[in-house]
């Protein structure tokens, strides 16, 4: 580390703006008497969109803040990614929060603040910064998951998530202390330098540290066997927060993993590669097999998202420039698809109050647009050609196989077929089961229709014209392996 620190606060402008936005939302909610609370989500979404546009000013620039975090294309990619996700979640929350939850101001403020945590997880180049950002994201999510506090399931899910999350944080910290104890630094670059030479003096401690870091982060991204909180938290959380959990919290975890393992732990690849590969295999198999038995759409998507985590972990196991850009690509496709699916599910729930799989019967007749979009999203999740899911999985599996993990790819392909089965179960309810007597067509709000169409177009766009996104992903990960 150089003695001259670069304390250029202007690098952090987007996050300052986000914090300001959160404060503005709270203030509007609390101090302005005649403010219409139903406008809050639009304020949040508009603010996020504005900061997103602002953060584009750092494209192709490369700098760092005191060595703690980098502002480069990788960071910019995730800034855009997380802010766009949060904006979409804010918009789909509008109706739901108004109908079902109290304290809308805090809801949107926490949503915005959690984005800061997610961004810094992707940006940090130092373990403590990464850890505290992870905590920021987790704290917001703990609160948001238990937001429906008059419902038992929300309380239960929130409590489980918080206890296991705190446990995971403790393990992660212990792991970090092992890494610090053996390498003498918390900066990724210094750790890599310390591990580049002979590590035999502290091999065991290093291994234990790696295992603990992996276990802690594995909790956060819900990798098997650290996934126990996922189904309950997904089921108990308010629906839009379930969408947010499946998108931002996972992707932020992987953004951190990717920068950490490529930046700090590359020299000791042999120590952790097999662990991550084993985790990936277990996660894929268990997530997809248990998903087969679910009756609730939230639990189904919880297990299917665990399965997706397995695919993403493969990229970490076979870490290289190709797999990491494929990972970014896959995560983008996955999040667009997942948000599309959740937008439909939330709209359907707002209209009918049903979230069981059998509750989707007659959706095709009652809300044809939502039915078509949800079907497209589910096909994409299972990896059908033409949809985003196919292309991104194709790239990911290919990249992983190229790195010599053919056996993982085989498992992944088999599990993709398994996943098709349970997605088809939902689609059957939507299209084959007839609605009950006297159930008419339902009016879908214009905003939701627009959002659904936009996200569905996104799903097809990534699936049919993948070149653009691939270029962006390659550009973003180039520096990691420079």
């Amino acid at each position, binding site marked *: 580390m150089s003695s001259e620190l670069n304390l250029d606060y202007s690098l952090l402008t987007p996050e300052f703006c986000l914090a300001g936005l959160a404060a503005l939302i709270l203030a509007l909610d609390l101090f302005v008497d005649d403010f219409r609370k139903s406008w809050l989500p639009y304020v949040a979404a508009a603010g996020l969109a504005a900061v997103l546009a602002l953060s584009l000013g750092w494209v192709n620039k490369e700098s760092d803040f005191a060595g*703690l975090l980098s502002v480069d294309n990788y960071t910019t990619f995730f800034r855009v990614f997380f802010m766009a996700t949060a904006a979409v979640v804010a918009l789909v929350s509008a109706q739901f929060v108004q109908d079902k939850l109290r304290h809308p101001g805090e809801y949107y403020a926490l949503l915005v603040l959690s984005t800061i945590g997610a961004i810094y997880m992707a940006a940090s180049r130092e373990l403590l910064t990464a850890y505290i950002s992870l905590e920021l994201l987790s704290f917001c999510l703990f609160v948001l998951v238990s937001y429906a506090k008059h419902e038992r399931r929300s309380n239960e899910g929130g409590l489980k998530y918080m206890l296991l999350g705190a446990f995971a944080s403790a393990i992660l910290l212990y792991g970090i202390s092992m890494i610090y104890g053996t390498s003498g630094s918390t900066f990724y670059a210094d750790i890599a330098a310390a591990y580049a030479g002979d590590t035999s003096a502290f091999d065991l401690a290093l291994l234990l540290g790696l295992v603990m870091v992996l276990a802690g982060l594995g909790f956060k991204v819900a990798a098997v066997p650290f996934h126990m909180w996922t189904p309950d938290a997904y089921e108990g959380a308010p629906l839009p927060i379930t969408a947010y959990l499946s998108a931002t919290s996972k992707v932020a975890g992987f953004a951190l993993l990717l920068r950490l393992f490529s930046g700090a732990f590359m020299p000791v690849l042999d120590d952790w590669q097999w662990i991550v590969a084993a985790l990936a295999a277990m996660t894929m198999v268990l997530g997809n097999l248990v998903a087969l038995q679910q009756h609730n759409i939230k639990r189904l998507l919880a297990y299917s998202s665990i399965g997706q985590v397995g695919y993403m972990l493969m990229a970490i196991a076979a870490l290289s420039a190709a797999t990491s850009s494929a990972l970014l690509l896959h995560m983008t496709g996955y999040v667009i698809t997942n948000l599309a699916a959740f937008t439909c599910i939330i709209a359907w729930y707002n209209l009918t109050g049903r979230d069981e799989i059998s509750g989707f019967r007659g959706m095709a007749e009652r809300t044809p647009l939502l039915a078509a979009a949800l079907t497209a999203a589910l096909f994409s999740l299972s990896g059908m050609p033409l949809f985003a899911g196919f292309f991104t999985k194709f790239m990911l599996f290919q990249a992983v196989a190229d790195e010599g993990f053919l056996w993982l790819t085989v498992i992944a392909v088999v599990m993709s077929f398994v996943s098709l089965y349970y997605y088809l179960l939902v689609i059957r309810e939507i299209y084959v089961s007839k609605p009950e007597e006297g159930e008419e067509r339902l009016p879908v709000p214009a905003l939701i229709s627009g959002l659904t169409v936009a996200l569905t177009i996104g799903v097809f766009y990534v699936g049919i014209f993948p070149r653009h996104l691939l270029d962006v992903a390659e550009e973003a990960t180039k520096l990691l392996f420079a």
Partner: protein
Amino acid sequence: MIAFWTLAALAVTSAAMIIVVRNLLHAVLFLILSFVGIAGLYITMSADFVAVAQVLIYAGAISVLMIFAVMLTPRSDRDNAGNMLQAPALVLSGLVITAVSMVAVETDWRLADRVAFESTATEIGDALVSPFVLPFEIASVVLVVAMIGAIVLVRED
């Protein structure tokens, strides 16, 4: 050396007692004792500031929080009965303890090059304001989030 072993024994025994005792309130009191023991251990490692923070935050504030939590809970005096998972849990924690102590003994740790006892508060302060500004500021945001969360979730409405 004597101080270290006494404090270690105190911390470990009271930690074990937390699990063994049936009364929830007693468990919390043993937890506080364990916190104090750990604070003592920090002093033997000449990490004076961490020790003070440990006493202030853990033995002070967090214990208050826990005692309140116990007092708030209806039927908190019922005992925390054992269940089927006792044996596997014992085996698992035994394995973890073995692994960690093996690592602690086998490893050639990088040692801090300090001999005399000197105050660490200044060094921590320096680290907080110059290289580690950002985690420090994020910590304040985390605290505010915790405050908002507590208010939203705990307040009656």
